[in-house]
C-alpha cells in the first residue's frame, strides 16, 4: 500500500511538471520580449513605472510621434481637433467618433471626464499630477464634491477642460501614459480594475489575454481596434530577472527584441557591437542623469562648493568607462531631445585644479568638506561604479564624499525627509516639455527631493513660466531659468543623457524605440518579417 501511494505521489508530481502550454499557431506573428521584473498592476492610476500595458492596451488624447530624423511631434490620437481659449485656460476637444473599447463600448466624452476624475479619486492613486491642474480638482481630491467642475461634457464626442491656471504645455502633458483613457462602465463595475485581464479594458491596439505573475503576460490583437492594425498578432513578455539569461535567450533566438540597458557594457561591446552591430537600434533615454546637492547641507549650501564639485567630475570619463561611451554629455537639465534644449548653454568644464583653487579661495582646507553620498543599491553595478568614480574625483580636490548604500525602500524614505545630502538621480521625461523636469525639481511645489533649492526668485519664475502662451517666449524663459539654476546657482551637476540601445532579432523588420527611451515601448511601432 505504501509503495502504491509513493508511486501515485511521484506520478502526480511528474505529471504536474510536464504540463506544457500551447505553442504559436502556424503563420502567426509572435513578438517575444523580456522584462527584468513583473508588472504590479495594469491600472495606470496606481503606478508610475508599469507603462507597458497602458502604452499598448489604452489610448490617450494625444501621442508623440517620432520623425525619421529623430525629432518628435505631438499629434492628436483620440482627438479629432481642438481649440484653446484666448486666456489659455480652456481647451475644447472634439473626439474621434466610432472609437470603441475592446469590449465594444463606445469611447465618449464621459469616459474622458471619468478618466480625469478617477485619477484624482481612486484609492492609492499616484498618477494624478496632470488631472490636478484642472479647475476644481482640489475640491474633488479633498472630498468636497464628487464632480470635476473644470470639465464640461458638451455631447457624446465633445468636452471642455478648464485649467486652474494657464499652462501652455498642457497638450504635451496629455501625451503622458498617465492620461490613458479608461472605460467608465468597466471601471465602475469591477472590484479591482487593472488586476484581472478580462477587466482591463482599453481602446488600444492590444488586449491582455494572460498574466501569470512573475512568469509572463500575453497581449493579443484588439479586434475592435479603431486605428492602424499592428503587425504582431501576439506579444509575449516573459519576466526574466537575470540580464545574462536574457542575453543567452536573444542569442539562441528565443527573444525578438532585447533591451540592452541592463547588460554589462563589456557584453554589449564584445557581443552586440560586433556580432549584432547591424541589428542594434539606438535611442536615448530623453532626460538627464545628474548629481543632486542638498542646499540645506552645511557645505553644499555654499555655491563655491557646488561649483567646485561641478568642475571636479570627469563626466566624459564616467560615460566612457561605465556605459561604453553611449550617451551625450549634458550641461543643463533640459536635455538633448527635450523641447527647448539649449545647445549654447555655458558648458561645465572639467577642471580639478580650478576646483581646488576655488575651494582654497573660499577658505576651505583640503578634507574639510565632507558629506554623505547616498546610493540606492537597486541601481545596479554601473551606478555603484559611477558613485565610486565621482567620490574619487571629489577626493582629488579635497572633498570627502562618503558613499553610503541603502536599499530602494530605505533610500526613498530617506530622500523624502529632505535630509539626503547628495545623490545621483536620473529623470526621464514623462512628456516632452521642460516644465516636466524644472517644475518637478525647482518650483515652489517641489518636495521630497532632498534638493532644497533656495533661489526663491527662480522658483517663482518656474511657476510663472507655464502660463506664458507664446511657445517661443516660454522656451526662452525656460532656457534663462536653466542658466540661472545650473550656471549661476550651480544647484546640480548635470552629467549625461544615456543612450538606450535595443537589438532586434531575425524576425523583426523594423522597430522604433519609445521617443523618451522607455523600456515600455509601443509594440505598434514594431514591424515583423
Amino acid at each position, binding site marked *: 500500500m505504501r509503495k502504491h501511494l509513493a508511486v501515485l505521489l511521484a506520478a502526480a*508530481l*511528474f505529471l*504536474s*511538471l*510536464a*504540463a*506544457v*502550454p500551447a505553442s504559436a499557431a502556424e503563420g502567426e506573428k509572435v513578438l517575444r520580449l523580456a522584462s527584468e521584473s513583473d508588472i*504590479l*498592476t495594469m491600472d495606470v492610476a496606481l*503606478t*508610475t*513605472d508599469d507603462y507597458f500595458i497602458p502604452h499598448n492596451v489604452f489610448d490617450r488624447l494625444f501621442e508623440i510621434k517620432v520623425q525619421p530624423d529623430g525629432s518628435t511631434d505631438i499629434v492628436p490620437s483620440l482627438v479629432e481637433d481642438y481649440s484653446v481659449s484666448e486666456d489659455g485656460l480652456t481647451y475644447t476637444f472634439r473626439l474621434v467618433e466610432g472609437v470603441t473599447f475592446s469590449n465594444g463600448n463606445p469611447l465618449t466624452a464621459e469616459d474622458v471626464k471619468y478618466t480625469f476624475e478617477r485619477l484624482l479619486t481612486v*484609492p*492609492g*492613486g*499616484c*498618477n*494624478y*499630477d496632470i488631472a490636478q491642474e484642472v479647475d476644481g480638482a482640489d475640491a474633488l481630491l479633498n472630498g468636497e464634491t464628487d464632480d470635476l467642475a473644470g470639465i464640461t461634457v458638451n455631447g457624446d464626442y465633445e468636452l471642455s477642460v478648464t485649467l486652474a491656471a494657464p499652462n501652455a504645455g498642457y497638450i504635451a502633458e496629455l501625451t503622458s501614459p498617465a492620461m490613458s483613457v479608461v472605460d467608465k462602465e468597466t471601471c465602475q463595475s469591477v472590484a*479591482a480594475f487593472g*488586476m484581472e485581464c478580462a477587466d482591463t479594458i482599453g481602446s488600444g491596439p492590444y488586449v491582455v489575454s494572460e498574466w*501569470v*505573475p*512573475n*512568469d*509572463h503576460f500575453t497581449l493579443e490583437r484588439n479586434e475592435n481596434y479603431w486605428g492602424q492594425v499592428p503587425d504582431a498578432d501576439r506579444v509575449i513578455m*516573459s*519576466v*526574466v*530577472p*537575470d540580464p*545574462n*539569461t536574457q542575453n*543567452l*535567450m536573444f*542569442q*539562441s533566438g*528565443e527573444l525578438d527584441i532585447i533591451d540592452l540597458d541592463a547588460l554589462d557594457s563589456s557584453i554589449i561591446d564584445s557581443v552586440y557591437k560586433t556580432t549584432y552591430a547591424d541589428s542594434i537600434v539606438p535611442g536615448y533615454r530623453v532626460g538627464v542623469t545628474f548629481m543632486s546637492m542638498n542646499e540645506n547641507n552645511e557645505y553644499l549650501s555654499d555655491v563655491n562648493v557646488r561649483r567646485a564639485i561641478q568642475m571636479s567630475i570627469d563626466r566624459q570619463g564616467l560615460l566612457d568607462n561605465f556605459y561604453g561611451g553611449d550617451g551625450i554629455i549634458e550641461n543643463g537639465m533640459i536635455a538633448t531631445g527635450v523641447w527647448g534644449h539649449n545647445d549654447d548653454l555655458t558648458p561645465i568644464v572639467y577642471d580639478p585644479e580650478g576646483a581646488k583653487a576655488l575651494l582654497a579661495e573660499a577658505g576651505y582646507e583640503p578634507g574639510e568638506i565632507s558629506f554623505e553620498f547616498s546610493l540606492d543599491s*537597486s541601481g545596479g553595478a554601473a551606478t555603484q561604479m559611477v558613485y565610486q568614480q565621482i567620490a574619487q574625483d571629489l577626493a582629488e580636490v579635497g572633498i570627502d564624499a562618503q558613499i553610503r548604500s*541603502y*536599499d*530602494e*525602500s*530605505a533610500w*526613498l*524614505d*530617506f530622500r*523624502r525627509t529632505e535630509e539626503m545630502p547628495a545623490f545621483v538621480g536620473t529623470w526621464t521625461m514623462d512628456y516632452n516639455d521642460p516644465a516636466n523636469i524644472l517644475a518637478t525639481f525647482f518650483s515652489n511645489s517641489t518636495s*521630497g527631493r532632498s534638493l532644497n533649492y533656495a533661489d526663491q526668485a527662480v522658483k517663482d519664475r518656474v511657476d510663472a513660466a507655464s502660463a506664458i502662451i507664446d511657445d517661443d517666449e516660454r522656451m526662452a524663459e525656460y532656457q534663462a531659468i536653466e542658466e540661472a539654476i545650473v550656471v549661476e546657482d550651480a544647484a546640480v551637476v548635470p552629467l549625461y543623457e544615456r543612450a538606450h540601445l535595443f537589438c532586434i532579432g531575425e524576425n523583426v523588420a523594423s522597430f522604433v524605440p519609445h521617443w523618451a527611451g522607455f523600456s515600455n515601448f509601443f509594440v505598434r511601432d514594431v514591424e515583423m518579417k
Partner: protein
Amino acid sequence: MSTLKSILRRVLSSIPVLIGVVLVIYLILRILPGNAILTMMGEHAREEVVAQLSAELGLDKPWYVQFWVYISGLFTGDMGTSIKYHKPVSELLAVYFPVTVKLSCLAALVAWVIGILCGAVSAMRKDKLADRLGMGFSLLGISVPVFMTAMVLQYLFAYKLKWFPLQGTKDGLASYVLPAIALGWSSAGSVARLTRSTLLEVMGADFIDTARSKGRSVSGAVAFHALRNALIPVVTVMAIQISSLLSGAVITETIFSLPGIGRLCIDAISGRDIPLLQGSVVFATVLVIAGNLVADCLYSVLDPRIGKES
C-alpha cells in the same frame, strides 16, 4: 502508537517555534528603515494618500496590535493582504509555492540519490580511482557557488547543446532539470562525504563481517546491512538541507526565471511588504519543520530501537 504520539508532540512543539519566527521577522522589518507604501507608490505619493492607505492596511496601529491581528488571522487561515500586489497572501503563495516545492523536491532527489550513491561507491572503493572521482565530484559541488553552477549548466546544456530550456516553466519537467541539478549538487556533495565516512565506520563493525562470512558480497553487505545503519546521521543532514535548498532556490529561481517563493521573498523584502514576507517565511518554516518530522520518522524506520526509546 508511541511514534504517533512522538509526531503529535513534535507538531505541537513547533507552534511556538512558528510564532517565534514570525515575531523575529516582524521585528526585523520594523527596525529596518523604509516604507512599503512609499516604495510601492514611488516618487509621486501624496502625504494624504500614504496616510489613507496606511490606515486601510492597519499600518498606522502600534506594532504589537498589528502583530496580534496577524497572528490571530493566521489561526483562521487569513495571512493578510500583500501591500505590493494588492492580493491575499494565501492566494499569492498558492501560485508561487508549487514552483519552489517542485524545484526543491527535485533538487533534494538529485542531492540524496547522487550523494548516497556517490558516497557508497567511494566507501566501497576506498582510495581507488572511483573514490577519488566521487570525492572530487562532491568537493566541486560543495566549493562552487550555486549561481556559478547554474550559469555554467545553463550555458552548456541549454544554450550550447540545447538539451534543456534556458529559462521559465513553459517546458514542464525539462524546465526544472538544470535548476534542480544546480541547487542539488552542493547538497549532494555534503551527503556523499558524510555517507562515505559513516559507511567506512560501519563497514568495520562485526555484523558486516558476519554478513560477509555468510556469503554476502561487498556490495550486498553495503546495500542490505551497512547502508541502513550508516544513513541515520545522513538523514539528519538531509533534513537540515531542506532549509538550505529553500535559500538556494532564491538564486536558481532568478537565473532560470522560475516564478517561485524565493523571488517573491526578495520582492517582499525590497518592498517592505511585511504580510507577504511573513506569509512566505511561515510557509518555509512549516516546510523545514515538516522535513525534520519526516527525518524523525525515518530514524525509527532505519533503526526501530529509536522509536521504542522515545
